[in-house]
């Protein structure tokens, strides 16, 4: 714990605020250290408790977060996790998400500073998601569940407070998205008829992983009428084909999050996850003529000239470049709803497994507990 003690002795490391919730709230907002909501004050004692499940050196940067390229040390991230309302056992998952986002394919710099309304969607797979209480059932993308709220919020606070994704200065989002408060789910593996996302990507079933996607807010797919795979996928494809999406221009890896009932109906007709991706690749298209004349001329004819320079207005515009690029998960509770989640486009999702310092997979969060 010496590094924590040393760091707290550094000039300016400690601040005093009245021991009053409203005073703390006012102070953090005035400093620009909050997301606009009240925070838990990151006292030394709370930060130290937050690090109880951290097997890293507390003051060694795990990643650097653009656009400031601030050093995300465990101590700094822990302070943000305290502020967000995390339990200490959530903390390794916050670090894991930041590490995944720092991998080059994710394009953290671009996703932080862009005018586009993207934010990290964190999808957790494996046993630790349930162990720490990440919701995968009803209202999975909504409010109420502490782990979903606090883990996603801690990541967002780190992006702002360490990375300087400050609106108008480092985060140039024109309008942003409410998902910037938190966007964190677990896949409902028990209710899925298909292999979970991490297994599909080559990780063992017992691995606990996070997949990070530079996502927009989800759009609902309401389908109470279809009783066939083709019916539900037709409705899904219709929801996916939108002219204003970055995926229409930059392809990328958009995500379909099927509700369990839709997924069961689709699988019941014999379709695998790969079949679903292939079907949507072929059908989630729209004619170029649906775009504006200027869009056709400036975007498709010139910038995407290799595909569309001489194409007819009936030429198909796809939302992803190849079937395997579509991310398919199953999450949520009962009901005839699924969700389509467009992305920043110029980004790739990254999946990363939670491992101990020795490189072995963590199968229970308790393995990381210090002392």
């Amino acid at each position, binding site marked *: 714990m010496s590094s924590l003690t040393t760091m707290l002795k550094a000039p300016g490391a400690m601040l005093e605020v009245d021991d009053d919730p409203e005073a703390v709230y006012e102070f953090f907002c005035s400093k620009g250290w909050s997301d606009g909501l009240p925070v838990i004050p990151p006292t030394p004692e709370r930060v130290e408790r937050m690090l109880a499940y951290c097997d890293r050196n507390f003051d060694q940067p795990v990643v650097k977060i*653009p*656009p400031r*390229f601030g050093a995300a040390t465990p101590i700094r991230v822990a302070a943000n996790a305290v502020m967000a309302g995390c339990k200490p056992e959530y903390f390794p998952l916050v670090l894991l998400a930041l590490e995944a986002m720092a991998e080059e394919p994710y394009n953290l710099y671009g996703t932080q500073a862009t005018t586009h309304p993207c934010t990290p969607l964190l999808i957790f797979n494996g046993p630790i998601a349930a162990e720490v209480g990440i919701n995968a059932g009803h209202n999975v993308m909504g409010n109420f569940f502490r782990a979903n709220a606090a883990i996603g919020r801690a990541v967002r606070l780190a992006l702002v407070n360490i990375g300087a994704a400050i609106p108008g200065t480092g985060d140039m989002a024109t309008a942003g998205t409410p998902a910037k408060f938190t966007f964190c789910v677990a896949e409902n593996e028990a209710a899925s008829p298909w292999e979970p996302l991490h297994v599909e990507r080559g990780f063992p079933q017992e691995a606990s992983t996070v997949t990070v996607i530079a996502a927009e807010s989800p759009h609902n797919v309401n389908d109470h009428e279809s009783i066939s795979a083709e019916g539900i996928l037709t409705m899904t494809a219709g929801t996916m084909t939108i002219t204003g999406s970055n995926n229409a221009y930059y392809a990328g890896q958009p995500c379909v999050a099927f509700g369990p009932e839709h997924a069961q109906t689709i699988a019941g007709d014999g379709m695998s996850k790969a079949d679903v991706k292939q079907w949507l690749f072929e059908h989630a298209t729209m004619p170029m003529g649906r775009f504006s004349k200027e869009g056709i001329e400036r975007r498709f004819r010139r910038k995407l000239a290799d595909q569309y320079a001489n194409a007819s207005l009936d030429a198909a515009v796809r939302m992803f470049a190849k079937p395997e690029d579509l991310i398919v998960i199953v999450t949520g509770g009962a009901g005839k709803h699924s969700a389509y989640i467009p992305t920043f486009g110029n980004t790739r999702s990254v999946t990363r497994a939670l491992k101990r310092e020795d490189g072995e997979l963590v199968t229970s969060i308790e393995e990381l507990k210090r002392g």
Partner: protein
Amino acid sequence: MAQLTKRGLIAAVVCSDSFMKLGTAQAKVFGVPDLPLLKIQHPLGGLNMDKVRARAAVAVPQLLKVVKEQQS
């Protein structure tokens, strides 16, 4: 541009007024706090050619000034 500046070349970034704070901050982050930012009116995207030329007319004199200053 930061890399070009560090290699001794004359470099500048065209930056619309809405993005000046980001440009200034990033120049510092990348170790070239004096990187010239050629300020034009926002936006640059979605303009017809006349308006693009008008932006260029504002940027080019700033670029020439940078070149002259750094050559002298």
